[in-house]
């Protein structure tokens, strides 16, 4: 069933009965009734009722690609900020370099940015990330900025459609971390255009037809430049 507007729900809002549907993400059950536990968008299919959060910090999931910023170098590990409720730990065993004890600062220092992958999230929500993968590395150059993690799917688009558009019309390299951190590299005008467009997508993330609107806007800008 096609809706005209995506439905926003709030904590404590009644969504359905457990006898008809299963309680999915963003919901809780009390006395056989399913309620929303967060401010979000209602997303239900034939089996599950889910609520996709509109706000809040990044909720780390194993295998997610994230952009982290090193906050502290310790003798055999680093603490990295990945915009979650907790800092993530990067152990010397999880980087592609051979590091002596106490030499961590020679490789990664406070303020360095890295393209990493979430390795493990345990019961106590202790987080570990890794740089051991061929497409993970220390980031050089470009610009980094943060968006709401909940908007990441929209910025990437279905099968990467939105981000491909951005790359095509701005000729920039763009990487969107699942944690809402975005890295861009290109010329100044290109970078500015990417930032402005992403801000627009953030503001209008719930509208339909956004991909087309963005394409029109990017096309127009490019025409004016040429």
């Amino acid at each position, binding site marked *: 069933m096609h809706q005209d507007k995506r439905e*926003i729900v709030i*904590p404590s809002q009644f969504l359905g009965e457990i006898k008809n549907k299963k309680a999915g993400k963003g919901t809780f059950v*009390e006395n056989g009734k399913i309620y929303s536990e*967060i401010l979000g968008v209602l997303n239900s299919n034939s089996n599950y009722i889910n609520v996709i959060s*509109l706000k*809040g910090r990044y909720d780390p999931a194993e295998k997610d690609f994230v952009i982290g910023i090193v906050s502290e170098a310790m003798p055999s590990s680093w603490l990295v900020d990945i915009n979650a409720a*907790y800092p993530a730990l990067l152990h010397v065993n999880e980087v592609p370099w051979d590091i002596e004890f106490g030499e961590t600062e020679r490789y990664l220092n406070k303020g360095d940015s890295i393209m990493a992958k979430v390795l493990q999230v345990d019961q106590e*929500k202790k987080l570990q990330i890794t740089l051991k993968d061929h497409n993970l590395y220390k980031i050089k150059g470009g610009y980094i900025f943060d968006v709401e993690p*909940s908007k990441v799917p929209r910025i990437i688009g279905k099968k990467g459609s939105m981000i491909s558009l951005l790359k095509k019309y701005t000729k920039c390299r763009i990487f969107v971390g699942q944690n809402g951190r975005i890295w861009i590299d290109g010329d100044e005008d290109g970078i500015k255009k990417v930032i402005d467009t992403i801000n627009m997508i953030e503001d209008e993330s719930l509208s339909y037809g956004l991909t087309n609107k963005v394409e029109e806007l990017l096309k127009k800008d490019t025409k004016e430049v040429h």
Partner: protein
Amino acid sequence: MKTEIKLFENGKRIDGRKPDELRNIKIMAGVLHRAEGSCYLEWGGNKVMVAVYGPREAIPRHTQNPLRAIVNARYNMAAFSVDERKRPGPDRRSREISKVISEALENVILVEKFPRASIDVNIEVLDAEAGTRCAGLTAAAVALVDAGIPMKDIPVACAAGKIDNQIVLDLGKDEDNYGHADLPIAISPRTGEILLLQMDGHLTQEEFDRAFDLAIKGCHIISDIQKKAILEKYQSDSGGI
């Protein structure tokens, strides 16, 4: 306190309200740039701003609870918010109010989802006119929703009291100063559970029942205003078709 002021005459209160009438309330969600969740609320002459940060790792580490998040509500009155300038900094009253509000919020926030973390709720009273703790908690609830914190309900608070032998809803300034009883209550509107309850003054058991019921009624009316404020902020962001 006995004075010459007549608080209730010809069915009306000093400010013209009926016994079961609330002061004007205006609520706006998501008003601050740095805060992860925020709310600005006006209630009668009260003006309250709330900012929520978190969940984030609790520091200092010895305050961390390995099983759940701790909720730190900090209620503070600006020096210029009252008739006689208040010295900046927490006083005993502010610390007590911070504690009862933290406890009310802890009940509805799904704290087990964030072990070792803290959720910091900063409540600033910018302009005060009786009922600041109810205004503070009500605004804090909206700010928490705005921050994306998972909760099983959106708490709301309201007070009732007794003036000149009349039970009334939502005491105004003079009523608070010269009335005979003040009963602020916070509830979880979905279940009706009581999350905050304080009382000072003198009430018979029957008067208490009536004041209690009246305060609960007030809570439900305000709960609708909270929900509208949240939806207004986020539904308008959903853009056109």
